[in-house]
Every structure is written in C-alpha cells, then in structure tokens.
C-alpha cells in the first residue's frame, strides 16, 4: 500500500528558505485526554523517517483535566536536549492557550483548535486554525472516544504541513496499538482526513519541514524505566519489592510485564517474585531479606521512598547485604514536584544513613545505559556485598529516548564471593584458615558469604546491624568495631575499580576547560560544548557514570585549568562531593547548578559558562 507523500507536494512560498529537520514542536493539551498517543505517534513517525528526534513530556501531578505539554525536538544534527525555544506550537487547551501562544518564537507557527475562541494577538507568527471538533465528529468515532481521536487531528494536520510521511504514522499507530486493527483504522482515519483537510484548506506559509534522513538507523526508541527493567531481567533479577511512586512505578510494572514471559520454568513456575509491598519500608526490607538469602534482589522508588528506606539501607550497608536500589529521581525536597525531573538526590544517596556511610552509585544517561547498569548493578552489589544505587531520573525513566539497542551482557554473571556446601568443605584447605562470615581472606575488605538454604552444618551465621567480630559474633569491643568499619570502607575503594568508568569527550588538541556532568544532562552539555566551541571556548567533557569516582576523574580534574561541574540541582551536589574527594583541586572546580523541574538546556549551560569565563 502506498500513501501519498505529502512532503513532495509541500510547496514553500516564494522566497522562504526551508528550515528542515531543525526545530521544536510543543503541543499543549489537557492531561488524561489521550494526547500522549498523538504526541508519541508524531515523534515516532519522524524517527522512522530517519530524523533524530526526542520528546519531553511535561505533565502535572494529577490524572485528568490539567494543562500538559509535550515537546518534540527535531534535530538533523542529533541534538536531543530540551530547548527553551518552541518554533511550532500546537494549542489544544483553552486553559493554557494564552501561554502557548506567547511561547511561539517570532517567525514560528501556531496550530490551534479553532473551537478556542480566544484572542491570538500576534502578527509575527504563522497561524493555522484546525477544525478539530468537526473532524473528530466526522471520524465516526463513538462519543466516548471522541476526545481521544480529536487529538489525532493535529497529527494529521502537522503531517501534512510539515511533510511527515503518513505511512510512518500508520507504522507508529500500528506499534502503539500492538497491531489491533480497529483502533489503528479509527485513528488513521482521523489522521488522513485531517491531512486531507489541511492539504485542501491551509496554505503553507512557514519554513519548517521534516525530510527523510538516515540518522536513526541502529537506534531504537524507548524509555529508561523499560530499559532498567529489561536490564535487570538480563541481570537475572529474582526478587523485586516495590511500592508505587511516580516516576518509578513503570519500572516495576515493566518487570511485571516481561518477567512472566522470560522467566517461567518448564513447569510454568516462576523463577522470580515481584511483590507490591505495603510501603517503601517493607519494599526495601523484603529486597534486603532476599538479597541476604542469595537472590538477585532489587527495589525501585523515588526520593520520598529513599528517605523512608534510610534506616534499612543502613542495615544492608552494615550487615553487608547485596541489594540494588533504583532511584528514579523526581524533584525534592519532600513531595516536591512529583512529575518533574532533577538531580537533587546525589548527596543523599552518597551518604545515606546515620553513622559513617558511603554508598556506590551508578548513573545512567540514556536507556541503553540503563539497561547495561540494570544487569551490572547486581554484579557489583554481589561482588561488594553492599547496597548499590542506580540513580536515574524522571527525564530518563519516563520520556522516550532515541537510543542504541540493548546490548546483551558481555560478561558472565558475577555472583561474588558466595560459598555453598562443597566450597565450605574445601575452604580451610584452600585458604589455610577457617571460614568466618566476616573474615577478610583476600585482603580486599570483602569476606565470603553463605546464604540460607546452605545445608552445611557450619554454614550458618547470625546477621545483625550491631557490632560483631569476624565470626559474626556480637561484639562491643572497640577494636572490633574500628576494624569492621575500616574494612567496610575498604570495599568502597574496591568499588572505584569495579564501577563503570566515566565517558570522556575530548577536544582535539586538548582544552584548558573541563566540564563534568552526570546522567541525563549529557545531551545538553554536549550541545553546549559545540556552541562554546563555536564561541571560541574549547572544552573537554567528562560524564561521570558512577560514584565513588574512578582515578580517571582525578586525572581529568588535575589536567584541566578550570573545571565546571554542571548539574541539575540547587546546591551543586556533585561539586560538593568532588570538593571533598579532591580537596587539593577544590579551587579550580566551579559549580554550575540549578533546578526548576525541567530538563537542562544547552543554552543555560552555555550562558552560565560564558558568564563565568567572562569574569
């Protein structure tokens, strides 16, 4: 079947230079109205045309009826960070209409539902009204679905006016509705009718166009929570204790979706358990119990959940229990902005709990990495016998990213130092010493552990969060305590070698200025780097992927004259941690930090650094 290729028919007015594959579309709708389907359909169609694209969903913390925005960045150069500028705005919501109109860049385009009878009052933009209600009605959709299909109108109109292939849209709908004929036909009908209407009634006056490229080959689109869940499954997850919380819920829900498919035994029994706990205290408690008993065990939550887990994670740290904790961060403190993104939990994870503690943290920047860290986190946790955090965020967890396909693990599972019956039999001979749960046989601070179910009569020990000696016997002895804490700290040094190394982007010929960042701000920083370069400021960029910091980071800081630590929080938390870590380099590190709930933009990074450099 061939659909008309509207792009070919798209004629720009005389003298207008086309702007191809390089703009942002923002759609303002009402949440709970199904606009999510329309928006991802648009985005996916562009992706299938080979054009780099990414969507950021800006939604309120409620279920239905409030303004919500979806921004699609289309970038031939592959810049996928959020931009503050909106060339194309689709205004579907009377409540946010004024704001949406104001948001259009001069020279930009406004599409709007023509039933909104509010003043537009701008003559510096192109305006296209859309007969949304009429076309929705004409679709023949039952009235209960009328609102939903209404949002397909703008998909059709935009497809026509920007030159997005209708067959790519069909493809996207097919994907979304998992091949179900009826909804596909219904929605595609609306899209086609709307495109048709636009072709017949609207005259293209703006310069924006989508044209096919080949830049999305070898990529998939997915979100970080799906990636994390799948990565965990390929890491062999066996136990998940969780409690619903935005933006982490879909991580556990994805585990619930895939695990039964991928991990049934030949009798149809499950080789895993996912337990929705009564709260986060129980979720982490179960996960720690399972990790203690030798299961690959995890929980997923967000800031308030981590706060509640504080005491329990301290127990896992002290009793040396492997467990993986995903923090899909939203904006705190407190309930904060539950549907917004940020990087404000770094310090808390690093130091979590009373007493002296340090925790290992993995920080993915995109879904491919979320998948990778999903399985690696178990290896690291079992190797270190410690809780390991993975710090994601709402932007990564819930937005659709253009990302490399998931890579099958390239290393065998590392179950760490675990002993079964036979190992215990040969232990004394092999190591020339009696086994004890907390004896540091290898001198790396990591002892050998046994787990319940080991039937060897000398396998059992009593685990506790209180002071104990090498043989797990209760002890208040001062020397034992110091020995124990220092050994545990030593594991943190071992962690430096185990954790994923930072990623470095260097300017050819070297740069005086170093940038350091972590996680999902990568896109913004990379884009800013190009802009800075264009402004005559070459920089090198290191993206930290874990704490504690590897030695590469020490070198990077030492080898640069000024280092900007760029992050999405108020207090410059990584900057604080690096200052403590490298006091000798403290003066050269400059914090570039802010948080307002939105993903970082290149413009903000560039402006901050240029302002500093101008000093």
């Amino acid at each position, binding site marked *: 079947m061939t659909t008309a290729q509207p792009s070919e028919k798209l004629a720009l007015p005389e003298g207008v230079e086309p702007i191809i594959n390089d703009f942002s579309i923002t759609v303002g709708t009402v949440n709970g109205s199904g606009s999510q389907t329309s928006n991802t359909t648009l985005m996916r169609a562009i992706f299938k045309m080979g054009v780099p694209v990414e969507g950021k969903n800006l939604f309120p913390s409620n279920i239905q009826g409030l303004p919500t925005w979806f921004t699609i960045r289309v970038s031939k150069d592959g810049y996928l960070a959020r931009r503050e500028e909106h060339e194309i705005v689709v205004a579907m919501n009377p409540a946010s209409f004024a704001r949406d109109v104001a948001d259009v860049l001069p020279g930009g385009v406004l599409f709007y539902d023509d039933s909104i009878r509010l003043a537009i009052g701008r003559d510096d933009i192109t305006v296209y009204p859309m007969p949304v209600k009429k076309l929705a009605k004409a679709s023949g959709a039952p009235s209960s679905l009328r609102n939903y299909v209404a949002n397909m109108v703008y998909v059709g109109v935009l497809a026509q006016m920007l030159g997005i292939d209708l067959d790519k849209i069909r493809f*996207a709908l097919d994907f979304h509705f998992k091949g179900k004929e009826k909804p596909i036909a219904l929605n595609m009908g609306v899209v086609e009718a709307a495109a048709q209407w636009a072709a017949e009634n609207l005259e293209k006056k703006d310069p924006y166009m989508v044209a096919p490229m080949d830049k999305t080959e070898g990529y998939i689109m997915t979100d970080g929570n799906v990636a994390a869940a*799948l990565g965990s*499954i*390929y*890491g062999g997850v*066996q*136990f998940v204790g969780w409690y619903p919380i935005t933006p982490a819920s879909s991580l556990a829900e994805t585990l619930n979706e895939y695990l039964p498919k991928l991990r049934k035994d030949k009798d149809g029994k499950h080789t895993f358990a996912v337990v929705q706990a009564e709260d986060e205290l129980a979720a*982490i408690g179960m996960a720690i*119990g399972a990790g203690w008993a030798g299961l690959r065990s995890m929980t997923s939550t967000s800031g308030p959940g981590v706060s509640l887990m504080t005491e329990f994670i301290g127990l896992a740290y002290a009793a040396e229990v492997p467990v993986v904790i995903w923090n899909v961060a939203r904006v705190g403190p407190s309930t904060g902005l539950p549907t917004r993104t940020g990087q404000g939990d770094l310090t808390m994870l690093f130091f979590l709990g009373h007493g002296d503690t340090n925790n290992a943290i993995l920080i993915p920047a995109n879904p491919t990495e979320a998948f990778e860290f999903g399985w690696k986190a178990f290896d690291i946790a079992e190797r270190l016998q410690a809780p390991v955090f993975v710090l994601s965020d709402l932007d990564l967890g819930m937005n659709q990213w253009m990302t490399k396909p998931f890579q*099958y693990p390239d290393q065998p599972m590392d179950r760490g130092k675990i002993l079964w019956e036979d190992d215990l039999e040969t232990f004394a001979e092999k190591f020339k010493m009696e086994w004890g749960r907390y004896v540091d046989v290898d001198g790396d601070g990591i002892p050998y552990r046994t787990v319940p179910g080991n039937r060897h009569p000398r396998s059992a020990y009593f685990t506790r969060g209180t002071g104990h000696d090498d043989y797990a016997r209760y002890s208040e002895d001062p020397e034992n305590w110091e020995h124990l804490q220092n050994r545990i700290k030593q594991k943190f040094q071992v962690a430096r070698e185990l954790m994923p190394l930072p990623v470095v982007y260097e300017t050819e010929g070297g740069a005086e200025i170093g940038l350091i960042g972590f996680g999902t701000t990568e896109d913004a920083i990379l884009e800013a780097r190009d802009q800075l370069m264009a402004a005559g400021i070459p920089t090198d960029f290191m993206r930290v992927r874990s704490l504690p910091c590897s030695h590469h980071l020490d070198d990077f800081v030492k080898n640069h004259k000024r280092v900007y630590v760029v992050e999405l929080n108020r207090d410059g938390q990584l900057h604080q941690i690096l200052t403590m870590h490298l006091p000798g380099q403290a003066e050269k590190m400059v914090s570039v930090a802010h948080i307002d709930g939105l993903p970082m933009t290149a413009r903000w990074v560039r402006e901050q650094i240029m302002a500093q450099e101008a000093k």
Partner: protein
Amino acid sequence: MATRTNRAGLTKQQYRGAPSTLCQGCGHNSIASQIIAAAYELDIVPENIVKFSGIGCSSKSPTYFLSRSFGFNGLHGRMPSLATGALLADVSLKGMGVSGDGDTASIGMGQFKYVVRRNLDMVYIVENNGVYGLTKGQFSATAEKGLTLKKQGTNPYMPVDICMEAVIGGASFVARSFAGDPKQVKELLKAAIQHKGLAIIDIISPCVSFNNREGSYHSYSWGKAHETPIHDISFVPSREEIILKEAFEPGEIKDVTLHDGSHILLKKLDRDYDPTSRVDAIQILDENYRNNLLLTGLIYINPGQPTLADIHNLPDYALNRLTEKDLRPSPETLEAINAQMF
C-alpha cells in the same frame, strides 16, 4: 553411655544456641528452651530453619537457640519484611520469627498486619510482656489499661490484642500461650512449625526486670493464677499412628489435620471450641479482651490457606541456587525485544 539423638541423628545440644544474656527468669528464656525442645522433638534439621527477629530483648533470643540455623536480627519492627524476602529464596526453608510486643504491635504494626495478610510460611512468636524491656520499661502497646509503672505513670489505653489483629487480618494460624505453661508452648510450637503458612503465637512472657509486679497482667503470678486453656493441645507428627485418638471418648476431641498429614489434637475442656471457625475465634477473643482474661490455646487455624509462595507460583526448588543459565534469558530473546522496541 551414648548421647541420645533424635531421628535427624542430632543431640539436643545441637539445637541450642549461645548462652543467654537476658535477665535471669525472663520469660523469653523459657520460650527459647521450648523452641529447642520442639525442634528437637520434631526431628527438624536446624539448617532447614531460618530465624528472624526485630530489636528488643525478645528479638535477641534467636541467638540463644538453634545456632546451626541462619538468623537475621533485623530492625525494630521490621522483621516481617526481611523474612518475606528471605523465605522466598528457598521454599523448603521454614521461617522462625521472634518479636516483642513493642516490636510487633507499636512500631511494627504495619508490617505485622501485612505478613499476616500474605500468609508467609513462618512461625511468628510474639514474646509479650507489656513493656519495652530493652529500653528499660516503657509501656508497650499491649500493656493493660491502668497498669502503673515506676517512671511511666499509668497507662490510659486499652491494650492491642495481637491475636485479634491477626485473626481479622486474615491469619491462617493464631494461638495464645503463656511462658509459664511450657508444655502448651511446646505443643503449640510444634503445630505452628508444621503448619504451612503464617503461624502467630502470642505468648505472655513476663519481664522480671520491669513488669512482673503481682496483679499485673503480664506477671508470672497473675498468669499462673488466671491462665485458662481452652483445650488441651497435643501435636502428633504425621509418622505416628494416631493411637492417642483412640484413648478419647467421641466428641471429646477435635482433630485438625495439617498439610503434611500431622495432626493437632484438641481435647475439650470447659467449652466446645472450634478453632477452624473465624466467627468463633473473633468471639472468644472479644470476650477475652473485654474481660481481661488469659484464655490460651489454638484460637484459629485454616490449614488450607495458600501461602505467599503459592500465590507467586514459585517452584519447590530453591531459587537461590539457580545459575546464570536459568537466570539470564537467551540472546535471541533480547534480539526479539530490541526488534519490538520502536
């Protein structure tokens, strides 16, 4: 003379733990002895039991029995969640939890209600002394109304009834006993251990240091004077013929059969009590609560209730012995997933 061993080939000594560091005379010590005795008499291999506790004097006691069992002394009030995760690792293991009244009914109320609801396969013993022993004698949630303690004044609240909480929370096995009645404690323990699912035993266990004054509900003297068993309980393991049964008149005995074929025999005393009826259980507990009685025995049992492992459709082999080949799906499956991603 050869040391006596049980059918597991073990001496009683092999069921003991480290020497107790609790106060002399503490009820918790006598319960520990009965746990040792019950496990020994049931011929259980200690490695098949996993011990759990929260924080408190009571929660220390798992150190004092079954050294050869793994144990986890967790956090205050959080034993249930730790046990829940751990016991799914190998469903052939039996959980044995010891908690206190503070640990279970104040800070632990939420997790207690939920482990009951999930019917985890474990024995959950509450060593109930009406006070916080380890922090030196504050009122706990089970202190009776009107109890006066030295530094604490007079308790103005009605006690939390742990058995009632368990019954209405959906427990499959609920019993109450008294540390001063070791025989009953032991028989109940045996039944609880063999029961498949969560078995709550609320044992009044006097704190000799902080709440053993004459006349107080949780004292030895009051318990000795007022304990009223609702039946005479005997546990009969599956391997034994129920010869006992024949010794009773018809109608005199109630026989509850457990999943493994063992039996709980309940000999009628003053009243005709049916522990398989939820209505009866609620009624007797309400009566007990309103009149501050100490009725002991098996209050409720439902041997057929699915456990958490059943609900999660777990296999009968140990999950924690699975290896990479069982745990990591094949590369082909990932290829398929990548292909399905947009």
